[in-house]
């Protein structure tokens, strides 16, 4: 049987200049006047930077497989899904998709704030390729799943962001298609709904549909997919079993230093420290103690940015998110200077011992510039936890809360 997705040497080239949001007629006229020869010679903009967002991607996916696609920001994951969804054309190569394709690059595409929840279900459904009959058939399921019965006839602009998200995902989750292309959509929303969405995704996969799933969240990729590929600089690895793939991916990331250079902003985060020790040296921390995480940066430009920085702790073995905070949550504002640092202090509760990954996200003037960057690992050492002196090592919960057993006769 033929593979349901067959990708052969698929490549996509972008020109730097063209990615500008828009440019005016004047620029084009200037080109004509200053250099008519070049314009007439067929637009050979040799001086323009070009890069391959995708280069020679080969991939065959069998029916019913769920393939995870992982890679850093800007590696080309989203571009691949955009080409496969026919949003943007490839420059070279070919892909054959045998079945109805539904792509979900963003949740809530085309929602109109003035329209009611009910109306938006039909609008969004149609935009994603559902017929009216299909939407009507699934309508009750969608409403149930989104938990918005009471607000069906309220304009979406009065919805909370959580309700908005739930409704958007609910429509998308009820798409009927043999092939689903999904980009990052699960990484939004509160945890309870995330769990529900993940469960829904597992259902979808069990019904025999083929899914390409792009995510930064390795935990989700591991949970959903059996196989996957890594995309790096537009090139793809071979289709590999997911555990092996994630190991390879993490090893490749470990070689990166605990610094982030943001060239476009002339800003560099030079070091991240935990209790004064650089994360490069794998600091150790004790549970039930004060913990301080510091990000040090220096800038070479004159511009100052409104910095928002998050720290997250993730259990390394199963990627559970144990802790997350950013300074705007606590109403702390910071404008970057030539040299500075921002630090976070909190009381680390009695978490299970082992290795944890320290992650950061950085926003400058409200724009996300790095997402889920792994700065390094730290170890939470094992400390006496129970009166029985049993160790925490094989304890099933992540968090130990002092408890008191009582027996009454």
């Amino acid at each position, binding site marked *: 049987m033929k593979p349901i997705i067959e990708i052969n040497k698929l490549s996509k080239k972008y020109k730097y200049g063209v990615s500008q949001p828009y440019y005016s007629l004047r620029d084009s006229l200037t080109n004509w006047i200053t250099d008519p020869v070049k314009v007439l010679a067929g637009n050979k903009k040799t001086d323009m930077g070009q890069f391959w967002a995708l280069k020679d991607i080969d991939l065959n996916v069998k029916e019913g497989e769920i393939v995870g696609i992982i890679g850093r920001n800007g590696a080309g994951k989203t571009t691949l899904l955009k080409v496969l969804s026919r949003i943007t054309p490839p420059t070279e190569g070919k*892909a054959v998709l045998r079945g109805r394709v539904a792509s979900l690059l963003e949740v809530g595409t085309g929602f109109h704030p003035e329209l009611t929840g009910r109306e938006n279900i039909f609008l969004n459904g149609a935009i994603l390729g559902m017929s009216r009959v299909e939407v009507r058939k699934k309508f009750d399921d969608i409403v149930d799943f989104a938990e918005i019965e009471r607000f069906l006839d309220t304009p979406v602009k009065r919805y909370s962001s959580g309700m908005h998200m739930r409704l958007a995902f609910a429509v998308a989750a009820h798409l009927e298609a*043999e092939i689903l292309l999904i980009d990052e959509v699960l990484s939004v929303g509160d945890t309870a709904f995330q769990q529900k969405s993940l469960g829904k995704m597992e259902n979808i996969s069990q019904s025999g549909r083929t899914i390409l799933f792009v995510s930064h969240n390795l935990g989700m990729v591991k949970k959903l997919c059996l196989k996957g590929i890594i995309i790096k600089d537009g090139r793809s690895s071979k289709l590999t079993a997911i555990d092996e793939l994630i190991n390879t991916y993490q090893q490749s990331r470990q070689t990166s230093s605990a610094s982030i250079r943001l060239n476009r902003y002339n800003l560099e985060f030079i070091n991240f420290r935990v209790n004064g020790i650089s994360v490069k040296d794998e600091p150790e921390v004790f549970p039930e103690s004060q913990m301080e995480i510091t990000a040090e940066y220096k800038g070479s430009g004159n511009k100052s940015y409104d910095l928002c920085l998050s720290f997250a702790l993730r259990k390394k073995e199963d990627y559970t998110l144990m802790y997350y905070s950013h300074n705007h949550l606590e109403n702390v504002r910071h404008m970057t200077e030539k040299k500075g640092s921002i630090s976070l202090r909190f009381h680390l509760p009695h978490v299970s011992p082992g290795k944890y990954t320290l992650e950061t996200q950085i926003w400058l003037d409200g724009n996300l510039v790095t997402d889920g960057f792994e700065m390094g690992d730290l170890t939470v050492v094992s400390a006496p936890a129970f009166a029985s002196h049993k160790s925490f090592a094989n304890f099933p919960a992540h968090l130990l809360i002092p408890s008191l057993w009582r027996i009454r006769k």
Partner: protein
Amino acid sequence: MRVSSRETVISPKSFGVFHLAEIVRFRELFYIFSWRDIKVRYKQTFLGIFWVIFQPLVTTIIFTVFFGNFAKIPSGDLPYPLFVLTGLVFWNYFSNSVSHAANSMIENESIIKKVYFPKIILPLSSLLTGFIDFLINLFILFIFAVVTGHSPNLRIIYLLPFSILVTIFSSSGIGLFLASVNVKYRDVRYILPFFIQILLFITPVIYPLSILSPSHKIYMAFNPMSGAVEASRGIFSGTTPDFFLLTVSAVSSLLILIAGFVYFSKTEKFFADIV
């Protein structure tokens, strides 16, 4: 699992090829975009749907006072208010369609970047939205004509479809072309109101074509809206419009439609990358 026989081939060549079947497949989206625009437009407005008839009526009154009464522009055997309202009903449909179609790509940028569908649906659905307004206005026009004692004559059978088709063809052609140019050059946003205003003056909306010498009329007819407006007046007036001029306008509108369509289809595939 239902096995679908649908096979999609993606290659550099598979883009930009016009598939009528694709548009048919996405026809529901066509209605739903129009429906959305109609629904959204008058939400949270006090006068609501009344706005549709407000604009042509007020313009008619002002034009009648200034051009009809003061400037004494001739209007043939029709009273000036009916004369100018007839022209305005078609002209407004044309100008609203063109400006909505021209902005349709930019306004729906987020959808274009995230979902696949034949993009031609967007400008065409804004034409459908405008058509609903046009029908309402047409209804008002007929009431007004009957009330003022100028019931439509038998020529309505071919003159009305002619005017409507020429208006649709020329606004589609220009709208498609501008929608595509607008993706790359936002200059369109600034040129458009100016362009439409100029076009109003070279279209016989406030004056009759008969005030021009015959040799100049032919140039006017290259503007397809001249033909549409002239023909629409023949519905109420006793004089038969000049068929030669109508033919020139009809051919011109067809050429505009084809040119706009071809240009749009050729540039469409890059919209998601540059919008």
